[in-house]
């Protein structure tokens, strides 16, 4: 079998990087592939609009976001997911909630991809009843659990309150979600809490993951939390007292032509 020549770990770009960054300590790193990105970020930083103070749609953009379409959910599931996510991370004085941040699009996109299909999980049978400490043991894929759970949110809302979940008041929506969280709902043999925890965690991811995944729109999730996103260096700031503020950068700012 042939030797894999590509295994040489210290590649050329790194050599260049090191060459140009020989004096990295004490100042901004310049030159090299990574250094070039720092320069472009410093420029971008000043052009970023201020964080949106209210709960309205964040930072205006006249362009349509063609990423906002559905890969997995049907329309009803999407609306239910969006409404539930909004209760998990609601709009308030601090800023937008999960809905305006695009968390439901994030969840839809995740369900359509390898996370939703458990592509990197061990899904080989036999599936057996687990002790509480042995972790996830369902034969069900995450996207199947998600669809089942969202449909169940609606069914439960109809049974209890004679209305679709999306049409319930916020208080009643919270009540329904709490019932799922507390495992008080029958979900075809699956613990309802497992579905709720997944939905909760995906919502938080949709709020705070890099905007490239469809949520955290305009980095507003980060701005609320004073998280600066993708910065290359805090070498000159790490010793400073208090909270050092930055305009956030996303990985989009990291692409080089």
């Amino acid at each position: 079998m042939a030797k894999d020549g590509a295994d040489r770990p210290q590649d050329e770009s790194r050599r260049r990087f090191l060459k140009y960054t020989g004096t990295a300590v004490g100042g901004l790193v310049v030159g090299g592939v990574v250094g070039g990105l720092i320069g472009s970020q410093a420029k971008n930083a000043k052009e970023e609009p201020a964080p949106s103070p209210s709960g309205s749609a964040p930072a205006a953009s006249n362009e349509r976001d063609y990423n906002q379409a559905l890969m997995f959910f049907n329309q009803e599931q999407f609306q239910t997911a969006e409404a539930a996510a909004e209760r998990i991370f609601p709009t308030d004085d601090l800023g937008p909630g999960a809905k305006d941040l695009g968390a439901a699009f994030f969840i839809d996109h995740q369900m359509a991809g390898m996370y939703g299909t458990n592509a990197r999980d061990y899904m080989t049978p036999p599936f057996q009843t687990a002790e509480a400490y042995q972790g996830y043991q369902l034969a069900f894929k995450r996207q199947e659990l998600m669809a089942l759970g969202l449909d169940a949110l609606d069914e439960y809302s109809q049974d209890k309150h004679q209305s679709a979940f999306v049409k319930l008041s916020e208080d009643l929506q919270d009540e329904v979600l709490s019932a799922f969280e507390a495992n008080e709902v029958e979900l075809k043999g699956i613990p309802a809490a497992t579905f709720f925890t997944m939905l909760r965690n995906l919502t938080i991811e949709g709020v705070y993951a890099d905007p490239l995944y469809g949520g955290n729109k305009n980095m507003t999730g980060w701005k609320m939390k004073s998280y600066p996103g993708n910065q290359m260096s805090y070498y000159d700031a790490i010793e400073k007292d208090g909270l050092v503020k930055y305009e956030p950068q996303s990985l989009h700012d990291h692409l080089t032509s």
Partner: protein
Amino acid sequence: MATNMPKATVAIVGMGWVGGVIAAELTKAGHDVVGFERGKSRSTADYYHVHDELRYANRYELMQDLSKETVTYRNNEKITALPMRTYGSFLLGNGLGGAGVHWNGQYFRFLPYDFQIKSKTVERYGAGKIPEGMTIQDWGITYDELEPYFVKFEQMAGISGDPTTVDHVGKMSQPFPIGPMKQSPAVKLFRDAAAKAGFQAYTMPSANLADNYTNPDGIERAACQYCGYCERFGCEYGAKADPCVTVLPVALNTGKLEIRTFSNVTKIVHDGKKASGVQYIHVPTGEEYFQPADVVILASYVFSNTRLLLLSDLGKKYDPDSGTGVIGKNYCYQVLGAGTTAYFDDKEFSTFMGAGALGATVDEFNGDNFDHSELGFLHGASISLTQTGLRPIANNPTPSGTPSWGKDFKATSIKYANRSLSVGAQGSSLPFRHHYLDLDPTYKDAHGLPLIRMTFDFEDQDKNLVKHLAAQTKKIADQMGATKTETRDAMTTYNITPYQSTHNTGGVLMGDDPATSAVNNYLQMWDADNVFVCGASAFAHNSGYNPTATVGALAYRTAEGVGKYLAKGGSLV
């Protein structure tokens, strides 16, 4: 049928820290080495878009693909082990550099006490101090004997740390090659608080370079930028020491190392006394090959080293009923239940900045640095505050009683994201007779081979340790001027779901007696003198520290042993 390959002098299974160190040392000495890596190749160029919490921290980009292979787990022998289907408790490495790519770089030499834990315990407290079922044993090597190998790893990796050591850790014959990391306000606050509580805090020794560094092999690396993306991430600067930016290039530059990626070794071929080589599967095609070699070195993770020996029927399998046999014995972990979180209503910290090994540590309650006469446990923990760089998906600190979602959750988690600090205790994990590794009877990997099965739980030893150490973390945190502190001091059953630590140890122990250990103090197998098994699999227990320093020192020791074996043959002890 497996295709025969031309014979190599040395075959190394696994191209992480251990395989890299040994490959570099042996090739520099002129030996030909073939290195097997089941995963892909890697370089710093892969990390230009590494600041992606979702992809790397939550979706485990750099970790082993569990659909192909995982471990099974049970709390005790009465229940059926089930596969770890998705990641939780610990994260398995894969690809060139292995877990050495996505570590934090926290570097601690184990204590002199660790290597002679049994004899020192008996000496100070009497044999009755060791509880029924606890199987601590000496390592067959002393701290002083291992000391020169720690120095070698430190010089190679460029470890940064204080120029002098505190009283209660092992003496260093040479200071760290680089001075300490910068001190953030949070770290400084911890150090001052520790001093007020009467403890000696020191700068956490770090494999994230505090300064530009050229190592004895001529490898140049740039200083750490404190970007906050170490653990679970690769370093785009090469500032964090990992095998791909240190030892592997050195080995490759000799022209004497051939790395075969996507090559999964499934068997050591042997006659019961000597290995003739290894059998492996070329993963993309499924084709089988046989690689003859004079020396076979297992240099993969704890689970893979142990599993490969069991799959190959090499060495005496451990039997928990009789306590005899050695392969799979003394599986240990890390005890992390103790800690105190401090919440500050009127003070903010830039906790998003950081480095994997930016922090300070207190060792008064580690090892046998304190009197255990009246305590219901042995050993202890290091107590540290680290600023590794908190990322927004994971960083949602809330005082107890706060809901995990909704209005209060949002407001509280955002409020404290930059207003909370945590003092944590990293506890030792001591072995018990019924904590062990063997082959699972049911579940198989993608090639149809049995998965490794872990039988493990926390014991009274661990629960008592957590209680005592938690009180010490509170003593320090209470001096930090916080609005309030909350202490975690309860530990229950081991749970595979929440992330705890990727510090799994044991299974192929080193020692001075073939009846109780699998390898001697050169990591050479008692039962096959041309097979060396190196890594944390050799640890007879796990200390209250991160394991990589000791893994690295043992790798240098192994390299020396293999060199001696190639010159003279036979048992090295």
